[in-house]
């Protein structure tokens, strides 16, 4: 194959990849540290949004400690049960009444988060499962 055709072939392969090679099961860890790194850091803690010294809405999601404190309203202490004030983004054990889930789903809120592009459903499900498991800082 000439080099003029090699790159388009690679791009075509990349564009088609994922159509049939991904598992239907999600074995990712239901832990806050994983969710913060895999989801929040890359999709929410971008430069113009929930990061730095001037995060939007005062909610910084760029570190595990800041994200946990901002979402759950408690310091991140492994094994420590979170508090449950009504205004928190997360209500431990109750994803359906957690504002974080509403924001990610775009239900009962002015706009969905992230506003530029929604999270894939498996990522939202990971957040739901973490809340259902008690929303610990694990």
């Amino acid at each position, binding site marked *: 194959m000439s*080099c*003029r055709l*090699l*790159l*388009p072939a*690679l*791009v*075509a*392969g*990349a*564009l*088609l*990849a*994922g159509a049939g*090679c*991904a*598992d*239907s099961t*999600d*074995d*990712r*860890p239901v*832990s806050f*540290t*994983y969710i*913060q*790194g*895999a989801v*929040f*850091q*890359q999709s929410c*803690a*971008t*430069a*113009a949004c929930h*990061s*730095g*010294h*001037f*995060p*939007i809405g005062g909610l*910084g*999601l*760029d*570190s*595990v400690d800041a994200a946990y404190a901002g979402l759950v309203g408690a310091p991140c202490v492994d094994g420590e049960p979170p508090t449950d004030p009504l205004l928190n983004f997360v209500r431990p054990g109750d994803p359906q009444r957690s504002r974080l889930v509403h924001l990610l*789903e*775009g*239900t009962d809120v002015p*706009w*969905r988060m992230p*506003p*530029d*592009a*929604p*999270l*894939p*459903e*498996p*990522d939202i499900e990971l957040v739901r499962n973490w809340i259902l498991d008690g929303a610990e800082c694990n």
Partner: protein
Amino acid sequence: MRRQVLLLSVAAALVAVAASSGTALAYPQFQMSSGTNRCGECHYSPAGGGLLREWGRSEAADTISRGGDDEFLYGAWEPPKWLALGADFRGVTGIKESSDTSRSELLLFPMQADIYSRFAFGKSLSLSVTLGGRGAARGFPRPPLGSREHYLMWQPNTTGPYIRIGRFYAPFGLRQTDHTMYVRRYMGFYSWEETYNVSGGVIEDDWELHATASAPDPVQVGTGRPYGGSLMYERAVGSNLRWGLQAKVERTNVRTRYIAGGTGKWYLDGPKLMVMAEVDGARESIDSTPRTQLLGHLNLSYFPVQGVMVGAAVEHYAEDLSVADTARDAADLMIQVFPRSHWEVMLMGRGEQIGDTHSVLGFLMVHYYL
């Protein structure tokens, strides 16, 4: 979604067909179509973008647009030789619809207001500073002002070695202008994600090599963005084809990511068509859990007449190849018109599919550079 993408495709195709074939054109990112080989021929930055050199201003007015005065302030005042100035202003209005929220979102916001300055200290040394307002699609940007770029550079000639220290995007991949494209959004080059770097390289007409060590901006970006390093190599094969390789490592407090990829740019003289492609693969470890990612980007641009560019792009980004329905795809159609020097009007349609959710964005951008 498919019907809307098809309608956008038909609209763009009609524009392309209706326009007659004209003079071969150039555009800064399409360096080969005008015989301009390197980004640094038109821009002071060795990797392109930002303040234009005299040659770049001339190209933008005479070759890319439908004509006009190319000078700063239209020649009303000429800066001294040691000073170069410029500015970019962009405003956007548009509408976005998403399938799962069944709601239309109207967008109207200032995208960019940057003033560029470059101070030369002799032949080789310079200081470049960009100051400007921060645009935001929603809400009020905080802080409202910022500096995307500020760097000190040693570069004796536009070819040969150079060293840069300061804030800018590390040279990597295709460096598309649109920050929402996956090659920028998910590769660490999103809006205002310029890093603090020590960077150096060698640029020749038929090849270039850049090496960069990076740290995030602690004020505007925060601890979630990575430290790292990157390498980029690009080589010309003849006058119409260039290929490149790039690699990057990123490390934050909870994740480490290794990226490797390639690029290609191919200008077809006959149909006046530019083909650009990028493929990147990434292996990432998050809190000791690995995942593999894949990104593909294909972009076609056609210059039907001087002052008009019609483009289309498709992109795929698999966030985690081991988990179903975590990939996203996008298709873009763009019509860019450069009616006179200093002016650009862009009409863009973008469709995106993420699992079962799809969204369509249409927007109009007006760009003025000084």
